[in-house]
């Protein structure tokens, strides 16, 4: 078994997470840190970067046979940008994919339980309030994807 193959096998054994920043949002710092942290934690990270549409996320997930899509939205338009995303996943045949969303997902300081309700209805599996760093979400990811 040559070195390249061993690498591939190891690589394939990793769970794959698509990350990116949705909509017209350009906040790039958190995105880079998320890539760094998830990779260090042993995930196969597919980073589609900022200014990504729902389609960009879904296409990447299909192409890489991903286990989870992790949407970042920092700039406040998350509510508009995320609507209908689960439906698009269903249409695309990845109805069961895990959908996470976090960052500063709505405009302003809103009652988070209400915000969560809105995003649960949209079909997101986990929704994080402002100030939740990626490190704090690692536990959930492990749980949802299995050790």
């Amino acid at each position, binding site marked *: 078994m040559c070195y390249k193959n061993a690498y591939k096998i190891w690589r394939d054994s990793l769970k794959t997470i698509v990350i990116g920043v949705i909509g017209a949002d350009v906040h790039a710092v958190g995105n880079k840190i998320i890539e760094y942290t998830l990779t260090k934690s042993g995930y196969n990270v597919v980073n589609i970067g900022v200014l990504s549409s729902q389609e960009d996320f879904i296409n990447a997930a299909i192409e890489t046979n991903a286990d989870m899509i992790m949407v970042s939205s920092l700039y406040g*338009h998350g509510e*508009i940008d995320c609507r209908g995303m689960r439906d698009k996943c269903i249409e695309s045949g990845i109805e069961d994919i895990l959908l996470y969303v976090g960052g500063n997902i*709505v405009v302003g300081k809103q009652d988070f339980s209400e915000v969560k309700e809105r995003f649960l209805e949209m079909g997101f599996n986990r929704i994080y309030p402002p100030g939740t760093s990626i490190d704090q979400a690692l536990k959930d990811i492990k749980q949802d994807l299995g050790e």
Partner: protein
Amino acid sequence: MKLANKKLTEKEFLEQRQEVLKAWPTGNDEDLDLDKALAFLKSVPEDKNFALVLNKAKENDDTLIQPRGGVPVLKEHIKLLNYLADSGADLLPSTIDSYTRHNRYQEAQKGLEESELKNRALLNGFPAVNHGVKGCKEVFIKVSKPLEARHGTPDARLLSEIIHASGWTSNEGGGISYNIPYAKSVPLEVSIKHWQYVDRLVGYYEERGVKINREPFGPLTGTLVPPSISNAVMIIEALLAAEQGVKNITVGYGMGGNLIQDVAAVHSLYDQTLYYLDKFGYKDMEISTVFHQWMGGFPSDEAEAMALISYSSSVAALSKATKLITKSPHESVGIPTMEANGLGVKASKFIVNMLKDQTISESKDLDLEMNQIKKEVECLIETVLKVGEGDLAIGTVRAFEQGLIDIPFAPSKFNAGKVFPARDNEGRIRILDFGNLAMNDEIKKFHLNKIEERAKTEGREVSFQLTVDDIYSVSKGKLIGRPLRDL
């Protein structure tokens, strides 16, 4: 038209203008007739003219206060601005929403309508293009302080037409500073051309006796940007603007966190902007400086946020910046309420008043830091001119292409993204990885020594982990992201 750092002829400008105004129905407004707009701008009283108010402040050694702020619905936006003025703001903003910034007026319209319907903001700013001259003029008339559009728009031509014709006498941005940190796939060549247009518009008014202020966006990505990189960008944008006829420019700087480095950065930014403008023959320029309160991740605790706002204000006052852009205690969470925004204004105003008559004493340390920044800026600017074969605009595009100028953490694919900063033992921002950044060996050695010194203090290797720790540190209440130590 080929890119060049050359003033657009009036003909070129007017031709392009016809296209610009077609981008959205509000471009059709008769108040966008240049003569009408000029007449309206001439009627703007002195104390509502951004440029004149800045000039006066500079003369008096004052540091003026300007918050950020913008909400989608017109009535609410006016209410917000008046509240901010009552809280002590000397200059008023209108922060533009992100759809407008990307010229997605359709989505902005949807967000605006839904916000009006649901009585809850769904946009992160004021969609000025959708409101058109009619709405923007109403804002201008109903507030008592000078107005500026603050955004992050690679192509702000229509936006700029609309706001100036509405009596707004300042516009933030630039071909680099409103592209590289704010876009992913807009070529630099394109954004520079678009900002030449924006500057040319100001030049057009300027030639006809109306003073309008322009403000390149200093903080860039707001994240550990080494002062020499942002200062170099500021100077390039000031030169590009001056070529188009802009006369009143405010160059900007986002707080790094170390007092001496910050003061040194503001001082050298001012000195070198003057120097280069003069060197390239731009006369009668009016230059002022703006200091941005901490632009990176904020602490979520509101008392801590207020402390950070106040500390930022102290540094601004001690640096004698002409203007201070404030943050609010809600910063880490979301667009602030009117009240939270007002708290930031009040605290900031209090501090600049308290420190009005104080400066940082001259010292060897300050001198050395200023010299360091100046040397680095010189390296960058000389390189840009060299690769541009004498043309600043072309040089800029090429320098970014080759990573000779490189802005940390920028989303743009036209930015190399190979530079990584980290703090030294005193919390000054240094460069850990230079990528291809056009700096000489002496400079590189200086930076690496400083960072090694720090790593050694912390008993660890120099690595990207330093950068990551430093990105989080301020929001966790430390300037330097040191590993936790036993107490």
